[in-house]
């Protein structure tokens, strides 16, 4: 495993700027998640590290060595794609063995059998080894494509939304599984997603990307509790953070234009009066849609609340975050 460092990476596709001066370090043994909406530059970053694309400028160091001139094969990286990752004309076993048979690795036949068996065991797909890749369910397919990365001993694992095409249950199982595998191998993983739950639950560090810029890099807790901007604050947390004008509650510091208030950080019972528009019982908690004038906000309350739509409530902030005119954080 290795440390990967990006220095001042720029990349454009025609007139479209994909990455603008991105620098970051993926420490050895870390699980770094790049988070951002479509078009933020997440996948581009991954492809630059893999060697499938070349940066316009900047350097990429893998283990301290400049890799920009190297081919994907030379970089010895493994990648898990979002979909289309299994070769449909091969069996599961052949798919898993494929990277081992490459001219770079040229693994012996016994070694291939051993490794494929081992990985199949870890991912609980041993009984499917002789199936055609196309005969698997979505979850099994994604397991196999993760397995295809695991059979090798690459310097870094690159994963491009590997769980996004799976259903919720499987996603949550595989999240834990991936995290466990990473911990036990001590693997370095660079992982791309737009799912904030994946970022929060798996990452050791999260990189928040916005239109090709890396706006914040830190632990999930740092980004959740101490975001640098409205944008970064909106990346984590579901439902999304409420953004209200600064004068909505008293006590805003000078220069603050808006208040960011996470739904779970609203106290009921005192303060501003608002009207309940809709009550959503989600089972483990209840979501209240509140309205005052033209402002909509969402808060959470316990699951068996008696609050009815139309009811007037009083709300007060618990951990307000203040932001300036450009959306930048203002600390009080």
């Amino acid at each position: 495993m290795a440390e990967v460092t990006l220095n001042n990476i720029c990349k454009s596709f025609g007139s479209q700027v994909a990455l603008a001066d991105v620098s970051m370090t993926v420490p050895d043994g870390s699980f770094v998640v790049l988070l951002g909406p479509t078009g933020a530059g997440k996948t581009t970053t991954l492809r630059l590290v893999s060697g499938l694309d070349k940066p316009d400028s900047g350097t990429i160091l893998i283990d301290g060595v400049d890799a920009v001139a190297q081919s994907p094969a030379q970089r010895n990286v493994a990648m898990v794609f979002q979909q289309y990752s299994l070769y449909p004309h091969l069996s599961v076993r052949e798919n898993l063995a494929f990277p081992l048979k490459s001219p770079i690795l040229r693994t012996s036949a016994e070694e291939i059998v051993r490794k494929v068996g081992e990985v199949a065991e870890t991912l609980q797909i041993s009984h499917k080894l002789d199936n055609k890749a196309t005969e698997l369910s979505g979850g099994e397919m994604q397991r196999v494509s993760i397995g295809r990365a695991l059979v090798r001993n690459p310097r870094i694992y690159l994963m491009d939304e590997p769980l996004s095409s799976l259903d919720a249950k499987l996603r949550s199982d595989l999240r834990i599984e991936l995290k466990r595998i990473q911990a036990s191998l001590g693997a370095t993983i660079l992982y791309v997603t737009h799912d904030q739950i994946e970022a929060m639950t798996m990452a050791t560090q999260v990189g928040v990307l916005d239109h090709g810029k890396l706006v914040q890099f830190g632990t999930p807790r740092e980004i959740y509790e101490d975001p640098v901007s409205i944008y970064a604050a909106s990346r984590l947390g579901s439902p999304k953070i409420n953004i209200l004008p600064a004068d909505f509650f008293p006590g805003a510091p000078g220069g603050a234009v808006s208040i960011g208030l996470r739904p779970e950080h609203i106290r009921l019972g005192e303060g501003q009066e608002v009207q309940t528009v809709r009550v959503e019982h989600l089972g483990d908690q209840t979501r209240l849609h509140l309205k005052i004038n033209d402002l909509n906000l969402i808060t959470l309350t316990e699951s068996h609340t008696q609050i009815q739509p139309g009811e007037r409530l009083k709300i007060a902030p618990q951990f307000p975050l203040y932001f300036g005119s450009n959306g930048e954080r203002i600390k009080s």
Partner: protein
Amino acid sequence: MAQIIIRNLRKDFGDFTAVKSSSFTIEEGEFFMLLGPSGCGKTTTLRMIAGLELPTSGEIYIDGEDVSQKPASNRDIAFVFQMFALYPHLNVRQNISYPLKSQGMPKRQIKAKVAEVAKLLGIEEILHKPVSGLSGGDRQRIALGRAIVREPKAFMMDEPLGALDAEFRERMAEDLRALHDRMGATTVYVTHDQLEAMQMGDKIVVMNHGSVEQFGVPQDIYDWPATIFVADFIGSPSMNFLHFNGSVNAGDSAVALEGQVFEIPTQLQSCEGEIVFGIRPEYVSFDQNSLYRGDIIAAEYLGTTQIVTLQSRNGTLKSRIPSAEPASVGENVGLAFNPRAITLFDKKTGAALLSEGNKGVLDNG
């Protein structure tokens, strides 16, 4: 708008039974969810209500009239396939007025109708625009407008948001629900996403293998699932299941798990053999004094809360606790269960055992 009653509905495709025997009632103006995994028969049920499939047996009443063997065109129902399936070569107005034109409605009347619908949907400004350049939200409104303009008795929607990415879907779901609240139109909505069903639905039918597993309001289904399947399907993470061998008798208000006695809602039904002890993650808490212990195998940070996965003597279970509470992998902790939130299931049949807790919910379901 109409009430829809489904009675003993069944559909066979050759040897394969897609829907075994469904019965439920959709009240006038309700936003009604058909929920279940793929292949459970929910889409077939929806298509039978719409008249796109004819049932093998059973009845469908729309406003009291048995329509089960009538063709779709005689049922006066709108079917919204995909929110984004618009005619790309027509502009917004033409798209919305299309169904009226094909009915042969006079021009002046069409114009008035379209204006009314556009006002309701808030798309008056874009009526003259071609649909190709519009945002996803606008396209969704137009697709709906095309369905609304006919003033059907009910709307059928088959996973209309299924193709969207998570963030956008959330917004669309909210929009759709708000629109429903304004119109009050009876809506039947098929989804496999339990969160979507909980969030949007007034009532939910949970289907599995062609059968109705449970039918009711979201919170009741979440709190008091009728079967192991429902308990597992609803909620994320889903309910914890602790398996044990033993017996429960009517009148019991405690049960022993590995020698550890836990208080439970007073049972109204007896059961012997393999029993499943069900408890939702938010009702599992840490208690250093408890003798029932588990090893932490994963802790997932979620902001204010965290989900801790534990290995216990009766299987793995998850607990949702505040993220401020310390929980590190490898640690051994004592566990406490909120006694009011426990459901026992008979493992053989998968059905919940009746108790003082769930009898109110299960009796009328």
